């Protein structure tokens, strides 16, 4: 190759890399478009209607919020299995505090503090205790679920004040509040991941932890903060969920949320071993999952088969992204 040829190739490469950077480094937007088109063709009367689309967004907003935090955790090369159980205990504590003090703000503060605290414990076990994230958060998952069952005596807890349910049950321009929350958090997390020092460090840790450490960056601190951020997102999700239902159930709330959140992150093109991925990818990953669920319902497919479709999509998306 002569010199001009090389330069041209580099230029072409750069153009491609700009496009792919916009796509979050993968083909998730393409997949999203394909699925939207297919869905509209398969179910032309009901899929592309305004209420249906709003409905999809509303349904994914809670998992989506959790998935935003999960994205950053996976980008650092970690994983958090405790998100679903943490949601129960955070939700329960929030309602408990509100019922006892009658102060909604205090309840919300409790939620945020607990979510962040659970993340802090996760991060500390992982960094100081040198336990792999999978094991540490698996333990946290079991503990939180069990404590939730114990404290709620296997049942649930409802908020006494009806004001609480206003947080997630209102509508603005026909769109329910949780959709706005999810959109806003996505935007904030996107900017955070791309524009802040901590966001940059999270990518660096996931890509090469040793090199990051030797570049005078406190890797343990970055990791712990990442789990705390994940916990904060869980707290937001817990508020939205418990406010919507005005209650929380120890046994069923948040069950399998960790799997759905991780699935959305993977479909969104984030590399499981860390270092690569994007919040935007996760946003579309979440929507893809939501549309699939929606289509299965619209087409009258047995809800028991939803897991099969989800499983296939996860595997296919990873197979496709291997070539990226």
């Amino acid at each position: 190759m002569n010199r001009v040829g090389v330069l041209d190739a580099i230029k072409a490469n750069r153009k491609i890399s700009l496009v792919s950077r916009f796509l979050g480094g993968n083909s998730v937007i393409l997949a999203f478009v394909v699925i939207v088109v297919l869905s509209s063709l398969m179910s032309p009367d009901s899929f592309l209607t305004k209420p249906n689309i709003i409905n999809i967004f509303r349904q994914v907003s809670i998992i989506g919020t959790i998935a935003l935090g999960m994205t950053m955790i996976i980008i650092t090369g970690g994983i958090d299995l405790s998100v679903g159980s943490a949601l129960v205990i955070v939700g329960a504590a929030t309602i408990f505090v509100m019922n006892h003090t009658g102060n909604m703000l205090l309840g919300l503060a409790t939620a945020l503090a607990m979510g962040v605290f659970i993340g802090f414990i996760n991060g500390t076990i992982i960094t100081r205790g040198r336990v792999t994230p999978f094991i540490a958060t698996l333990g946290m998952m079991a503990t939180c679920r069990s404590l939730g069952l114990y404290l709620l005596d296997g049942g649930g807890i409802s908020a006494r004040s009806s004001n609480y349910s206003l947080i997630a049950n209102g509508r603005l321009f026909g769109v329910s509040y949780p959709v706005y929350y999810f959109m806003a958090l996505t935007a904030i997390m996107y900017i955070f991941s791309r524009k802040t020092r901590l966001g940059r460090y999270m990518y660096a840790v996931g890509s090469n932890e040793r090199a990051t450490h030797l570049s005078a960056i406190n890797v343990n601190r970055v990791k712990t903060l990442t789990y705390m951020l994940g916990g904060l997102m869980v707290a937001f999700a817990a508020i939205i969920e418990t406010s919507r239902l005005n209650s929380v159930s120890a046994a069923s709330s948040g069950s399998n949320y960790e799997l759905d959140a991780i699935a959305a992150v993977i479909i969104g093109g984030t590399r499981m071993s860390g270092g690569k991925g994007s919040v935007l990818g996760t946003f579309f990953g979440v929507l893809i999952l939501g549309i699939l669920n929606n289509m299965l319902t619209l087409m009258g497919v047995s809800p028991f088969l939803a897991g099969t479709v989800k499983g296939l999509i996860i595997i296919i998306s990873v197979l496709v992204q291997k070539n990226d």
Partner: protein
Amino acid sequence: MAEPLLLMKNMKKRFESQVALDGVDFRLERGEIHALIGENGAGKSTLMNILGGIVAPNDGEIFVQGRKVAIASPVASRRLGISFIHQELNLVNDLAIYENMFLGEELRTWSGFLDERAMCARTTEILDQLDVKLDPRELVGKLDASYKQVVEIGRALLRSTQILIMDEPTSSLTEHEITHLFKVMRSVSGNGVAIVFISHKLKEITSICHAYTVMRDGAVVANGNLADPGVDEEYLAGLMVGKDIASIHFYEPREIGEPVLEVEGLSRKREFEQVSFSLGRGEILGVTGLIGDGRTELFECVFGDKPRQAGRIRVHGVERSMASPTKAQAAGLGYAPRNRKENAIVKDFSVRDNITLASLRQFVRWPFIDSAQEQRHSAGHVQALNIKVSDVALPITALSGGNQQKVVLAKWIEAGADILILDNPTQGIDVGAKAEIYRLIQALAKAGKSIIVLTSEIPELRKVCDRVLVMYHGRITGNLTRSEATESRIMMYATGAASAEFNTTA
């Protein structure tokens, strides 16, 4: 003249735009130990990888025993009786010797179960042939490094090997183990097997090899027999490095200022003991030794990567804890570790993001990173250090090894480090880029930076250093000025044959 065991003719190989082999001929006779010599990037590995079926040549012919062959895969290579022992041994530590020997080619009894007895018997037979007494059921993980090499050789013999390629087999062995390995190699070649011995250590080459081929920049510059008149270490070294670079003088005397880094009685269990030295402003201090000298561990500790058990570190006269790399950076230290890919490069990041990684704090206009300033500063370093990249937004992996190393240097310059620790700075870098790194080190020192260069290549020390510390088993055994630092003297201290009283000041 009888036909050679192996003849490679006019081998050519290009990797994208870079020429790795430019018409190389290579000839190997039965029963000889043939030294293949050259600096990193000279094309030795490419040539041998072609023989091992790992790399496909662009052009050229290969004859084994006069028969033209194509080596399309490692399996095809093995069928031709070629075995390749890589630098990183290919053994499973948790399996027994015999299991390793027969890995993938296990013997079975008629019932389909593994025939352990037959495999052990055959293993003992081969080990006997090598004059080594080992229990075939011993776990490989328990063997010392030279015996592991022997197991690899045994595995090669088991596959009725005619050509054995050994890539730097002695690099992780002690003196004693090397002697042992050489004995085994002689016995193997005595049985008619040809050995290609890739090594940088000229002393070893002159002691064990029969023939040599010297490569440089993808071409053979000389070959012949070691018994030929005039062939000695110096002659080979000259061929290897090439007149052009060997004769360039990188070194310029400089004014060396007050001590900036003083280390006193630094110790860490089983790694280094009672190490004291000091480094002056603008000084380039070389630190060398053989495998197991502890120099890498010592400077990992100085940089705060590993805790110390005893000793004090003063920077600009102020005592520092160096409890973490963050603290070391705050004290003005920078560290370019060995094994760049694993330790220094964030492979998913652009050139720019790699340059600003250690100093990101100063680019923050709260709460966001000021990308424009990042861009300006990194572009400035790219120009100043002559880093060959058209755009700092390109991924670091698009750069050659030499340019990646310059990025690592840029990172620490940007972070304001005035004491730079460079461990094996020219690892995996081609000759031309090496020269640039040497010039850069000189220029940095001239600008007042103090630099520590850790290397095992003695000529490299001569090219840049003002002073050389020699280490042996975790202790500093020699402290030599530039003029004292001859190869033989350094080797004396490095092998523990001599130990000097020396002053700890610059």
